[in-house]
């Protein structure tokens, strides 16, 4: 039973962090219908920011979140004014290829600066610590903190979007940019703000993830794919959908753990020979594929 409970807890904790990863993607898409292929690379920037701040300045990795958030916000805004606003004038394919180019640029820039080596944090208040929460289930302190802080960041963004004037202006821009302009909302700034908030969310998630996950310049691809799966599952543009779908995807990545439960319960040789741990992300992509085919606007899609 400890396998089931352990996998459930691990899946939910990871899902909370993944929800924050997907949040940025869904905000950017929700406001201006752009799919940001460089989303995972933004996360990579957050991971390197957390890593360098902690290693270079000796600040505990959990306290580097404001720096990572600031870097992400700035990166998002610079990207928007630098070239996304120009892409918006072109056809959809130009926008897709533009963010794809941004992905390649950021990845190769990281490769140039940091090399291809995996880097990880080995020191920090919580690094290596864990709690026994009973039933033989051990929870890593860094994962627990990352999940808690992710939920806090998620709630903060949700409040910003739903309880502030600026958030309502963002939502109005998302629903109809032209109508929002008629109402005097500076939609250009709202677009930049969406990129800024999107960038900040994902870089904060990156700085949290680097507490238990090593980073290299290629790490973005995995998270871009996972974020796409979450956004597709939760509905393009839906903030609550991203959260729920994040939890679901987190649990999907734990399928090998649930499988182990049956392996040990039934002591079935053929089951233990199935390399389930190797397939753990395959189930995420399968879910993404099925959702796109069966319900293209996602489970909680609110736009269009």
């Amino acid at each position, binding site marked *: 039973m*400890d396998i089931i409970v352990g996998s459930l807890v*691990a899946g939910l904790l990871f899902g909370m962090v993944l929800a924050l990863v997907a949040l940025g993607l869904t905000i950017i898409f929700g406001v201006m219908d752009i799919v940001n292929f460089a989303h995972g690379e933004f996360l990579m920037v957050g991971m390197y920011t957390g890593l360098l701040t902690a290693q270079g300045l000796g600040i505990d990795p959990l306290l580097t979140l404001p720096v990572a958030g600031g870097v992400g916000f700035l990166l998002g805004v610079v990207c928007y004014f630098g070239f996304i606003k120009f892409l918006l004038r072109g056809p959809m394919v130009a926008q897709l290829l533009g963010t794809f180019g941004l992905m390649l640029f950021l990845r190769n820039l990281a490769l140039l600066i940091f090399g291809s*080596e995996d880097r*990880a944090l080995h020191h920090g208040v919580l690094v290596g610590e*864990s709690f026994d929460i009973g039933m033989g289930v051990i929870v890593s302190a860094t994962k627990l903190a990352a999940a808690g802080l992710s939920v806090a960041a998620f709630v903060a963004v949700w409040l910003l979007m739903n309880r502030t004037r600026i958030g309502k202006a963002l939502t109005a821009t998302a629903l109809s940019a032209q109508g929002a302009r008629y109402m005097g909302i500076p939609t250009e700034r709202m677009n930049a703000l969406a990129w800024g908030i999107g960038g900040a969310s994902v870089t904060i998630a990156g700085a949290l993830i680097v507490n238990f996950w090593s980073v290299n310049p290629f790490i973005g691809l995995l998270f871009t794919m996972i974020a796409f799966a979450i956004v597709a599952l939760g509905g393009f543009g839906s903030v609550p959908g991203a959260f729920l779908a994040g939890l679901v995807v987190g649990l999907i990545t734990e399928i090998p753990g649930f499988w*182990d439960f049956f392996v040990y319960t039934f002591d079935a040789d053929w089951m*233990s020979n199935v390399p389930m741990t190797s397939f753990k992300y395959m189930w995420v992509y399968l879910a993404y594929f099925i959702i796109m085919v069966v319900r293209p606007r996602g489970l909680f899609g609110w736009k269009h």
Partner: protein
Amino acid sequence: MKSMIRVGMVVLSVLALIGFMAPADVLAAEEIKIGVIYPLTGGAAAAGRELRAGAELAAEIANTAMADLPMTMARNEGVKSLGGAKITLIFKDHEGNPTLGADLAKKLIHDDKVDGILGCYHSSVTKTVSAVCEQYGVPMINGSSTSPDLTMRGFKWFWRTTPHDTLFTKDLFEFLKGLTEGKVRGVSAVPKKDIMTLASACEKTEWGSHVSDLIDRFAKEYGFNLKRSMLYAAKSADLSSEVRSLKAAKPDVMLFASYTSDAILMVKTLKSQKANPKVIWGQDAGFETPEFRETLGKDIVGFLTRSVFIPRVVEIKKISGQVNDMYKKKVGHDLSGASARSFTGLQAWVAILEKAGSTKPADIQAAANDIEIPGSELVVPWKGVKFSTSGDELGQNIWSSGIIGQYQLDKDGQIVMEIVYPFDVTSADMIYPLKGF
């Protein structure tokens, strides 16, 4: 003036005569170019740095006369039979990528015109690189890849100095058997039921996959219960579900085949999940790099790893101590299994070239098949280097052997590795069981 011209003419004539008489190879071989393909970036970069430093030190010794070093290659400056030709190493970085490795081998052969190749650490890369060498008839010496398959392909241009994983894995099971028979120094006979359940996790390239199969094979042969056997991607950034799965098997002994970054991640995850086996054994590679030791510190006390070189060897072998001192001066720490093996790989190259007296591939091939380097000249504690020229394992060094080391704390609180197997050369009592995280 006339006499000066006459003397000049005589000197020129003599030189011209020598030029005609001397074999073309001798004159051409002012330098011998060896292409060295190692993982200098990527997850195994730390091991790559060790490998590079080991090969560089061997080249330095071969190129400089060092009278106080009792090693044939240290007697002369360069390769004597090739007119004192110096060894030049051309390093390439394969990043752990077999396709890139093969491309680099072609580049070394075509563009750099190397006389031979040394490499490549990852067995998967050694496999593709050796296939290129076989295709072009270029000699390749492998000092550090341990997949048994590599010398079972009937290749004519491939020689391996290191022992392979069949031997290492058999050593492990002999060690476990010895543990139940009370042969391990400092430990009373452990009832077999106490260490009966095993679980293994191996990275899933050429090397790890074979180790996994070998663990499965020997577990059956020696009567142990391998309850969980998994393969994982060495480039995994998170191994939580893998560790949970291993823990769920409640194993007494955990066995790993990992490269550096995944070995560190695996141990960190084992610690955060409070895994509590009685024995943890690593199949060298990641479990032996200085980075593994420096990053994890006291968390690895009690861990076992198979090896071919442990600094304690210097206490029983004078030449190892001498080379280790040189290495330490150059790099800042003791020789590791990786650097000792790359050193030995290049040493074999120099001995073969010396014996061949030529850089023609056919001459090198004949010399390699006939070479015998005595153990007294090696830094590693082997009987020597002698390659098999018949049977299933062509090119395998039949005089190589392995040891098992255990991380322990010395009296100054520093982490050192002690020899616990073979039983007749142990350097300390074994820590058993692990005290847990």
